């Protein structure tokens, strides 16, 4: 399993559009990715689960996948969250 941490860059937090674009990117990657925040772990491919985490601007989340070859893909997802202009 590999993990990455990311600080949410979107000014309004992981809401609406940024969340939808992140979930789309997870789906496109074809990976099973989880996103954890404040002790809750959610399926990163589910918009509802991602939204209900309630991560705000500046919060730190952890991404994880069982696929050990997916380091680069995970890095791209981190970048998307950090950039926050999604």
């Amino acid at each position: 399993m590999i993990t990455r941490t990311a600080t949410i860059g979107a000014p309004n937090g992981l809401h609406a559009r940024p969340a939808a674009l992140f979930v789309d990117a997870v789906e496109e990657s074809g990976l099973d990715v989880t996103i954890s925040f404040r002790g809750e772990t959610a399926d990163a491919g589910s918009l509802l689960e991602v939204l209900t985490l309630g991560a705000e601007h500046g919060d730190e989340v952890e991404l994880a996948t069982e696929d050990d070859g997916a380091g680069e893909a995970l890095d791209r997802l981190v970048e998307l969250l950090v950039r926050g202009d999604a």
Partner: protein
Amino acid sequence: MSAPRALSGLGVSVGFGLGPAVRVRPVPGVDPSEPAAVDAAADGARVREALAAVATRLEARAERADGEGREILLMTAKLATDRGLAKSVDKQLAAGAGMTRAVHDAMEGYVGKLQQLGGYMAQRATDLYDVRDRAISELRGLPEPGVPEMTGPGVVVAHDLAPAETAVLDPSLVLGIVTEVGGPTSHTAILASGLGIPAVVRVAGAGDIAEGEVVALDGGTGEVVVAPSEEQRDAFRLRAERRRAALAGSWGPGRTADGHAVPLLANVGTLADALRAAEQDVEGVGLFRTEFLFLDRQEPPSLDEQTATYTEALRAFGDRRVVIRTLDAGADKPLPFADLGAEENPALGRRGLRLSRAREDLLDTQLAALAAAQSATGADLRVMAPMVATVEEARWFAGRVRAHGLASVGIMIETPASAVRSAHLLDGLDFASIGTNDLTQYTMAADRMQGELADLLSPWQPAVLDMVQMACEGGSTTGAGVGVCGEAAGDPLLALVLVGLGVSSLSMSPNKVAAVRVALGLHPVERCRELAGLALGARTAPEARDLVAGAADPIARELAQA
């Protein structure tokens, strides 16, 4: 064909409508007779199919929508096929719930979380409920709930319509609205009248109107006829013709028969409204609500965005006056960036100017944007505050507005306190505008959203007319003009009474201006004063209206009915 049935309700948006009923379908609940899940995997697959069907239909609807409506529909479609949702449905099924119960409970889990997060997230709960209701209908083999997509003209018949449902109705297809509940100053009624769709609310028996049955309605009198006879249809049509004839020659500034000027202005609630109104025969804007800039956002609109919006609106009106009301928000329409917390009683809480005093930064940005728009256009801009009750508030607001270099300052008169003491509140101000909807609600202590209290909420209530008179007397002491910008201003008979009470301008939905202009032109100002005297002398609201209707010109009476 069934025999004609005459129903009656409250006319809340004038005009005639005649067409087949389009029934708004009720929201289905969990199927009470469904069996518990036997084969959770098969049931899970069926629920996924239902959710996918819902998503496809929402996407198809999004194709035909534009702007914000399209975004909302696409987002809602995305939620329907969410894999987290499908998994939690599976969990419910595995625990033995039936299919509709599983969908219901899975949604409830997410809605609870969204509501805890508050603000923007809490508002998404509505979208989830929409998906839930559509999916449950699909599983139960029932038609989709809500307003069906209309392919031809018709009359929308509902138990009740949410403002969001009303706002997306297409005025080119919706010939009328008939609801079983609702009130005269509910936002749905106001939206319908803004869209120019005739509407009658609180119609007992509306629930029995079948899909496709022909419905005739008169949004002035509140008459509704189901399956009307040829004669009844003709009578409705004839009235419509007469009304058109009476209005045909109506143009130009508002004047009484003896030439006393009463500017006729438009109430607008969005930039698009304002641009539409600017093309019509109105003398300006008497109430420009600015909430649309602030709602459904995480952050307040920037100075630049506000300046651009106000500039575009002011430019459209050239040298005609534009009265802009500063932000009127409160606990009933909370803003994530200006949430002062939940209140027991939002109508009596920190709303309107009270919120501005708690969040001066919001007001200052708004005033700076208005000042910039004014200097860019040289427009006749006037600025007023909502929900003012005391001299201190009025002075504080005037100081703020003038500090930004804006010349004309006024207040809304919506509280009995400001009506009774208007001579003191208006001292040093340029104008006032009576918001009859809120003034009625606060004078009668009757919630304007409460359809059951409709008779208390009539602006013909003698106590409300007394308030208007007092407000005008105060204005005449200080020299501040007192206008009216509530729905009352758009009733041709009541408009005569208001002018007789000393009201100096009338602001209403633009589609009501022509009828009011005709009514004014038929009565000299002295006659308006006599009509006002009759109304003030009445003991009850219906008596006030009857006395005025009996004494006014028959054409004005007929316009008020139609």
